[in-house]
């Protein structure tokens, strides 16, 4: 399995690098939307702190802004909301080619997602570091190291959620609808739309009944020091195991429904 993942990842990494060389403008354009989102959130959070006594808020202003920058960086780098991409291959029938390959479907999908992500790492990393220094936030190496340490677990959880949605698509045609139905609650409950550090504890505890806060809120709070790293990793591992079991069960239940028609 690991060897399959490595081979598929390497192939897609090299393909993506070649593609980027011929379309460098695509690198810039891919950062436009996240930069716009970050700018809007920064203005909104500034307005929140101007209108409400900062002492009545659950986090200080600097932490909230670091949260926004880091969540945007993680969203761009890890490429959330891949459910529709995975599911589209099933809906269109291209999954047939994946199933006849000498690699498992999961290994193929992991490699196809991971390779391009590694190839496109430089621009978001540079943009993130530039954004942090322009904003004057001098976080020590420990902050960046903790974020880096949690990237594999974040990516695993996001991939498994997408994989579960894709497996459900084996039973229905509407991959787009399933992807959208997942994507927006994911953005809301992970802290991408509203930093969960500002949300009342009751609502935050409700969000933590889902795996979505493990994608952004939990890693960022661990890096900021408000949550212990081992506690954060334990919660993430719990969700990885739970989602992994669900994805395996769903896949094996739904794969028998595939009818491959020739001719």
């Amino acid at each position: 399995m690991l060897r399959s993942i490595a081979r598929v990842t390497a192939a897609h990494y090299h393909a993506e690098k070649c593609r980027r060389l011929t379309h460098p403008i695509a690198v810039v354009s891919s950062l436009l939307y996240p930069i716009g989102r970050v700018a809007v959130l920064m203005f909104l959070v500034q307005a929140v702190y101007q209108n409400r006594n900062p002492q009545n808020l659950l986090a200080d202003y600097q932490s909230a802004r670091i949260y926004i920058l880091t969540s945007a960086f993680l969203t761009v780098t890890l490429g959330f909301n891949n459910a529709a991409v995975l599911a589209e291959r099933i809906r269109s029938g291209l999954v047939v080619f994946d199933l006849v390959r000498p690699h498992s479907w999961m290994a193929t999908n992991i490699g196809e997602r991971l390779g391009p992500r590694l190839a496109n790492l430089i621009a978001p990393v540079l943009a993130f570091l530039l954004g942090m220094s322009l904003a004057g936030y001098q976080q020590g190496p420990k902050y960046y190291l903790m974020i880096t340490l949690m990237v594999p677990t974040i990516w695993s959880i996001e991939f498994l959620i997408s994989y579960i949605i894709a497996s459900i698509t084996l039973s229905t045609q509407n991959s787009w609808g399933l992807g959208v139905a997942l994507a927006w609650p994911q953005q809301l409950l992970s802290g991408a739309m509203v930093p969960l550090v500002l949300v009342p504890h009751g609502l935050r505890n409700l969000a933590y009944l889902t795996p979505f806060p493990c994608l952004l809120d939990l890693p960022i709070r661990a890096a900021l020091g408000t949550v212990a790293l081992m506690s954060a990793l334990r919660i993430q591992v719990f969700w990885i195991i739970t989602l992994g079991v669900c994805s395996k069960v769903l896949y094996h239940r739904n794969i028998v429904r595939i009818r491959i028609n020739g001719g």
Partner: protein
Amino acid sequence: MFSYREDFLIGAVATGVFHLSSLSAVYLLFSIAGGINDWSPTDGVFLATVSSLRFALGKIGFWGLSALPRLIASGDLDRVLLYPCTPIPVLLLRDLDPLSVLDTAILLGTLVWSFPRCGLSTLSVIAFVVLMVLGLVATYGFMLLTVSLSFWAKVRNMFPQVFRVLWEFQPYPMTIYPTSLRVVLTWVVPIAVAVVIPVESLTSRTPILPASLIVGTAAVGHYVLGTVVFRVGLRRYESTGQ
């Protein structure tokens, strides 16, 4: 989408979930602040709903324009020009999105829930509807302008993407942005003109007459500019692709 009933239901649920999530985020943020710059959480949801409604109506009416850069790059604009009518209606109708009708229906429900109940008059409601229509005209004109630049762009026209990014600034009160950005979002790009100014005139934050002058001027200006640039670009179209 319409082939199978369950697929349609999934699409409908997805659309509802999308709007519920985005409007909940707005309400939550405004509630945490206890209101932002005299906009209550309900006012914030109303503004965000109007913004989404403008987007949904745009998808019904003129989203087909977004295909123009791709058609120019591939040379497929020839097929559109072969139709026995002007190319604009063909572009507008080719990518008509019927699911946007569902979008609109859901948003109208939210609009009714969050509609301001105090300080309204018949004149302000009529002015709001008229200003929203003019705002749509301004958006159409500016969108036509940005996609028409593809007639000149040799590599890739990024203006439609930049315009799309600036839409993210739309669902929130303009008072949260610095003055320089507000000027850009009002007079250069029709962001405030399409949504915020009509809502401000409805809720008496801006008097109706100055709001009408700003929105009317922007609508006429962007429509004329967009149409002129499109026609000039069409004359230099060479059917060779890029």
